[in-house]
């Protein structure tokens, strides 16, 4: 595999000069606020046998300046939207006059929740993403309007819930009633889309660590979402990122919140089982 050759070459070079060969993943350690240690590399889950040995966060594929922005909550511009969501958390909305805090107390009470979504909801008989669950709370318990998928309010709240789960390993269930949705997501992951006929796997499984123009490909992990991108200077949702990727293959894409992207989110999340929740992260 080309990537391994490159890494080996980089390791040789590193012996003679402190030069980081751009492209590959580095060996830095992610500690946020000097306090929260984040697992950014882990042995791949058994279902990835024959596909990947090790899974790693996209953080390893960024340069030092971008990495540093995520290591301090003040330097991370994504955290300002966590502040905005904390205000929303405490604000009563809808016909029932309730806020999130009225049922869930402090946001910290939701620690660990981000790590197990998407998950099967027995009552509803469907796999729900965290945003779907947030909207179920809003419409069923608060009598408030659902947020549009990946809209500012929804992404900010997802960032708040991710931030209190940082350092918890992603652990989505893929068996039992979720298995069908997971299989559907896996099929999408390996399907070639668009005029360029590219699947998710072509870039993020077979070529991570290699260049795509002047940038380098990550494994496409979603443990660190929502992510503040330097490119558009805002928090970005997973489904919007999926849409951007598929659009770039010059295909008609699925939409954020569609059953296809819900299934894909479950499957891609499961590829990161063992990596810690890291959002809101900073990427280029």
């Amino acid at each position, binding site marked *: 595999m080309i990537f391994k050759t490159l890494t080996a070459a980089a390791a040789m070079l590193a012996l003679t000069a402190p030069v980081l060969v751009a492209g590959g993943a580095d060996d830095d350690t992610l500690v946020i606020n000097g306090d929260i240690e984040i697992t950014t590399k882990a042995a791949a889950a058994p279902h990835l046998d024959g596909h990947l040995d090790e899974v790693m966060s996209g953080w390893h594929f960024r*340069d030092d*300046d971008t990495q540093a922005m995520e290591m301090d909550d003040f330097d991370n511009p994504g955290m300002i939207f966590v502040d905005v969501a904390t205000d929303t958390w405490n604000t009563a909305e809808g016909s029932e006059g309730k806020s999130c805090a009225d049922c869930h107390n402090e946001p910290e009470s939701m620690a660990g929740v981000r790590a197990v979504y998407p998950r099967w909801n027995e009552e509803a008989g469907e796999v729900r993403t965290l945003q779907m669950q947030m909207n179920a709370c809003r419409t069923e318990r608060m009598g408030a309007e659902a947020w549009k998928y990946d809209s500012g309010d929804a992404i900010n709240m997802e960032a708040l819930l991710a931030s209190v789960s940082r350092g918890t390993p992603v652990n989505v269930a893929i068996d039992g009633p979720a298995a069908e949705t997971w299989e559907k997501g896996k099929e999408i992951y390996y399907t070639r889309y668009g005029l360029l006929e590219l699947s998710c796997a072509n870039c993020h499984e077979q070529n991570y660590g290699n260049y*795509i*123009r002047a940038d*380098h490909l990550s494994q496409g992990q979603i443990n660190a979402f929502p992510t503040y991108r*330097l*490119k558009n*200077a805002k928090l970005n949702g997973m489904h919007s990122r999926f849409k*951007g990727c598929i659009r770039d293959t010059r295909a008609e894409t699925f939409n954020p919140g569609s059953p296809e992207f819900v299934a894909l989110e479950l499957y891609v999340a499961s590829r990161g089982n063992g990596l810690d929740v890291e959002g809101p992260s900073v990427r280029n």
Partner: protein
Amino acid sequence: MEFTRRETLAVGGAAALVAMLPKGAYAATTEEWIAEFTGGAEMADAGLDLTAPEIAENGNTVPIEVSADGASEILVLATGNPTPGVAKFTFGPLAAAQYASTRIRLAGTQDVVAIAKLADGSFARASKTVKVTIGGCGG
């Protein structure tokens, strides 16, 4: 009055150029910015540190730092941007150091220039070339 892109293009060349310039945003050159700041004085090479990445991962958010002991003001310019102005830092009596760090936009690979007005009224200049890379999937 609103023009669509097609309508704007349909207007004759020179007129269209004038119409498309943002109001009041006459783009002064880097030299003009410097002349206004220094009054044409000589600039030394020492006394001012400018820190910027050699390669910026994204031109939209590039971290920079300026530092000049005892300076009253530091001007930062991006020579390759549509308008070169970035920021002017004026240090008050309670600044513990004449130092500031911020994040800036660079339209492409270019020189970032900083000029400090030092305590004795003289000027110092520092410059750094920053390469701005083009992202993988459409930036």
